[in-house]
C-alpha cells in the first residue's frame, strides 16, 4: 500500500493525542489552570492536527461532513463520529478544569471512552479489510490501542504505567510483524484464485493492461520501501520502545522525559510507515506483483 504522508501523520499524531486525552479524562485529579491548559492544548494539537492532515488526501475535503452519515456500516464514518464526540465532550471537560477549576468526572469518563473508541475505529478501518491480509487480524486494533495508550501515558508523565504499556505494546508489535509476514501466503488468495484458472496450472502475468503504472498500481503495489523493511523495523522498535524505556528507567529528568517522547513519536511514525509500505493488497496479484 502507498504510504501517504498525510495518513501516516494522522494516525501517528491522532493516536498519541487521543491516548493523552484518555488519561486526562480518567485522571481522578487532573491538571487545572495553566498546567491543565498546556496538557489539553498538546492533546488537542495532536488529535486535531492529525485529523486535519487526514483530510489532505481526500479528493473533496469540502464534503468531509458527509462522512458522519454512514456509521451503520462504515468504520471510517464511525471514526469521524467518535472523534468529534470525544473532542466536544472533552472540550467542555477541559474548559471547566482550566477556567473554572471544576472537575466534572463523568464528562471525563465519557470523553475517555470516546477517545479509545476513536482509536479503535481507526484501527478497524484497516483491521476489517480482507483485501489486505496483513491487516485483517484482531492484532491490528490491539496494535493501535496499545500504541495509543502507551504514548498517552508517556506524554502525560505516568512513568510506571508507560513502562508497563510500552512493554506490552512492544510484544504486540512483534506478534503483529511475525503474523504479517505469513498473512498473504496463509490467506489462500493467489493469482490462481484471482483469475479462477489456478486449477489448470501455474498462472503468470504476461502483459499488463497498460504500459505504465495506473492509480491501482500506485496506490496498492508499493514495493519501493520493502528493501529496507528489516532495518526500518529495527529502527522503529528501538525508537518506539527500547530508547524511551531506557530513558524512563534512568533517574528522572525533564530532558530525558522529553527525549523519550520525541523518540517514541519518531518510532511510531516509522512503524506506521512500515504498516502501509509492507502491506500487500490482493489486487497486486492481478499484476503478477505483491
Amino acid at each position: 500500500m502507498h504510504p501517504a504522508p498525510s495518513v501516516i501523520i494522522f494516525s501517528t499524531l491522532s493516536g498519541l493525542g487521543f491516548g493523552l486525552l484518555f488519561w486526562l479524562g480518567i485522571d481522578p485529579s487532573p491538571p487545572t489552570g495553566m498546567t491543565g491548559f498546556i496538557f489539553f492544548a498538546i492533546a488537542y494539537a495532536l488529535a486535531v492536527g492529525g485529523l486535519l492532515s487526514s483530510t489532505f488526501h481526500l479528493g473533496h475535503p469540502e464534503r468531509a461532513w458527509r462522512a458522519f452519515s454512514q456509521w451503520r456500516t462504515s468504520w471510517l464514518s464511525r471514526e469521524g463520529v467518535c472523534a468529534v464526540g470525544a473532542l466536544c465532550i472533552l472540550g467542555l471537560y477541559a474548559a471547566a478544569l482550566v477556567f473554572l477549576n471544576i472537575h466534572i468526572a463523568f464528562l471525563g469518563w465519557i470523553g475517555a471512552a470516546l477517545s479509545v473508541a476513536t482509536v479503535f475505529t481507526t484501527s478497524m478501518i484497516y483491521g476489517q479489510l480482507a483485501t489486505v491480509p496483513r491487516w485483517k487480524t484482531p492484532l491490528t486494533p490491539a496494535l493501535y490501542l496499545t500504541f495509543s495508550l502507551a504514548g498517552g501515558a508517556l506524554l502525560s508523565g505516568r512513568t510506571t504505567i508507560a513502562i508497563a504499556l510500552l512493554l506490552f505494546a512492544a510484544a504486540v508489535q512483534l506478534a503483529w510483524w511475525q503474523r504479517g509476514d505469513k498473512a498473504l501466503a496463509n490467506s489462500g488468495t493467489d493469482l490462481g484464485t484471482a483469475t479462477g484458472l489456478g486449477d489448470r496450472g501455474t498462472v503468470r502475468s504476461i502483459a499488463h493492461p497498460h504500459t505504465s503504472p495506473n492509480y491501482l498500481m500506485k496506490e496498492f503495489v508499493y514495493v519501493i520501501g520493502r528493501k529496507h523493511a528489516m532495518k526500518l523495523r529495527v529502527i522503529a522498535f528501538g525508537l518506539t520502545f527500547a530508547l524511551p524505556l531506557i530513558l524512563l528507567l534512568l533517574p528522572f529528568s525533564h530532558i530525558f522525559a522529553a527525549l523519550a517522547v520525541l523518540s517514541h513519536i519518531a518510532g511510531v511514525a516509522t512503524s506506521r510507515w512500515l504498516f502501509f509500505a509492507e502491506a500487500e493488497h490482493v489486487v497486486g496479484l492481478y499484476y503478477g506483483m505483491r
Partner: protein
Amino acid sequence: MTTLPTSTDRKLGLVIDLDTCVGCHACVISCKGWNTENYGAPLSDQRPYGTEPMGTFLNRVHSYEVQPEAGSAQTVHFPKSCLHCEDAPCVTVCPTGASYKRVEDGIVLVNEDSCIGCGLCAWACPYGARELDQAEGVMKKCTLCVDRIYNENLPEEDQIPSCVRTCPAGARHFGDLGDPNSDVSQLVESRGGFDLMPEMGTKPVNKYLPPRLKDSWDDQSLLAPMLEPVADESRGFLSWLDKTLDKIPGGSA
C-alpha cells in the same frame, strides 16, 4: 445508503468468455468512449502523450499464461471490470453513502456529488474495479452502462453495455444472472462459469467462462489424412511434360 440490500429484484451483470476473448482491448476503448461523456465526471487522462501516461478506465484487459503440469502453455486474455458483487465490501466501507447497490437490479454505483474521494472503497475492492479519477477527485467504476440499458432513445440493439455491444469476438454477454432461465444463466450453467476470488466472500454477480482446453502438440489434425498424396506415380500429359522438360539440358530444379 451503504447498507446492502438483503436481496435485489434482478442481478444484472456480465458473463465474460475467456475462451473467445482475443485480447483486442476494443471493450476498453468503447467503455472509456461511452463513459467519458455520459454518466458523471469524464474519465481523465494524465500525460496522455508524455512519459508514463495514466488515465481512468472502468474496464481493463490483462493477459496471462497458464502452464499446466504437462503439455503446452495457454494464453488467456482477461477483461476485468466491476463484478457488481452481492456482498459488495466497497459499499459498506463508504463513509458518505456515495457508494450504493441498487435494489431493483443490483448495479453498484457511485453518487459522485457525495463522494469525498477518500479512496477507501477502492481499498476494499479485491478486484481493482474502482479508480479514483485524478482530475475530479471522485471515485469512478463500471456503471454497467446504466445510461444505455434503460435508455429508450437508443435503438434497441444499443440498449446493452457499450463493451458488450463492441466486442468483436462475442466474448461479453449481458443479462439477468438472478433469473436461472436467462440466456446468461444458461450459458454459465452449460460452460461451468466461475467466480473470481470466491474466498473473499464478495459473491460477484459477473461470471467468467473457462477457456476450452486446446490441442496438444501430439494431436493429429483431423485434416491430416486428407493431405496424404493420392498417387505415388504421376501420369498423364503433365507427367509427360515434366519428364520431357527434365531431359532438356540447362536449368535445374
